[in-house]
């Protein structure tokens, strides 16, 4: 699943296409906006569904996000990021805000087993992390993490768990989990930046 030059060139082309569609959306071009939705909605819906685990809420977030994208497409260039990254951040932030508003801090995450059992197309957060790392040639950086660190990062990223939820879920003291996450992030940063995979070297 390592990225081939063709994959990379397809990705770059897609990025340029999304950038153009965002620019036209900023000028209230509804056809460009519709095309942007057609190209990205399935990906963004998967992001929302994965975190929220509830289709009605995921639909609501997707809807809110695209209305926000319509209204704020003009600020995209100021974000200076990859178009898909920018779009994903809008959706993901709304998901996390929803989760926090629902005060899930007080709810134990006890559905790990259910989550695992749902379907083949619903792999564990850890598998997801490795799969995406694979796709982006980041596998080395993820694999360099300790197993505990990797598990904590995967649960936080794909489930949106807070430190305290992670601690309950992993049955570890809060301080331990916090340091796993902190060290994982430090190591990811130095590995990713060292590999030249950062925003200034990638379009």
């Amino acid at each position, binding site marked *: 699943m390592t990225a081939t030059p063709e994959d990379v060139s397809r990705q770059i082309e897609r990025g340029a296409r999304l950038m153009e569609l965002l620019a036209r959306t900023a000028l209230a071009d509804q056809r460009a906006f519709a095309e942007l939705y057609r190209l990205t909605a399935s990906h963004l*819906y998967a992001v929302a569904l994965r975190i929220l685990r509830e289709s009605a809420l*995921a639909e609501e977030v997707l809807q809110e996000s695209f209305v926000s994208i319509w209204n704020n497409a*003009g600020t995209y*260039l100021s974000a200076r990021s990859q178009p898909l990254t920018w779009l994903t951040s809008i959706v*993901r932030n709304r998901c996390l*805000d929803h989760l926090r508003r629902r005060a899930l801090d007080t709810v134990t995450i006890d559905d790990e087993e259910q989550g695992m059992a749902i379907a083949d197309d619903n792999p564990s957060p850890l598998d997801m992390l490795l799969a995406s790392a694979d796709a982006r040639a980041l596998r080395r950086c993820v694999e360099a993490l300790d197993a505990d660190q990797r598990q904590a990062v995967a649960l936080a990223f794909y489930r949106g*768990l807070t430190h305290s939820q992670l601690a309950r879920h992993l049955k570890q003291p809060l301080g331990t989990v916090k340091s796993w996450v*902190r060290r994982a992030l430090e190591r990811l940063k130095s590995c990713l930046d060292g590999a030249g995979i950062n925003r200034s070297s990638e*379009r």
Partner: protein
Amino acid sequence: MKLNAPGIADAVAAEYVLGTLSALTRARVQRLVRVNPGLAGAVLAWEERLLPFAEGLTPIAPPARVWARILQGIDADRAPAEAPSSIWGNLGLWRGLALTGFATALALAVVLFAPTAERPEQTLVAVLAGQDAKPVLIASADRTGRTLLVKAVAPVEIAADRTLELWALQAAGNPRSLGVLPPSGVARMTLPGPAGATLSSIPALAVSLEPRGGSPTGLPTGPVLFSGPVQQLY
């Protein structure tokens, strides 16, 4: 949160993007991002690092009703709002401006039918394209600023012993070098004066291929790879 301490803003940004912060801390970071450019930049950098992990997800088509609701939710007769509600709204000079120039070159027809393209500040934009007319670089500057932001929107491949150099073409006289460009990503060039004064009399920007480190003569010596007219946007 002592965000000015070295490393703290970066660590907070990392946890914010990963999603581990509690409701209270998360809301606090969202407020601080608006007023603290260092923190905002750190959040962007962490999004670039971590959000690609979301690309491993298998796409799932949303039900058709979602699009129908989106269409109901947008005001189609009106250009997008000037005041951005996103957390990036206050990031400085580039706020909601430069992109319009990109669009102008890419979709002139759209601009003609978008009478609401007025913007609160004036921006100078040049979209530089190669011979195939595909945009490769977008240069933009706030009129009153001295920074020219040059963003690559397509890959530029040059030999290791070559450098790209950006030139301001003059209505009369020799081109003036604005500096050398990195082959990818975003470059910030410092202009000799405010962009309005420096660039508004410039008909076009161009990029030439030069020996490593830039032109030895102060004038373009290699082929011009990309060029584009400077446009004023309001």
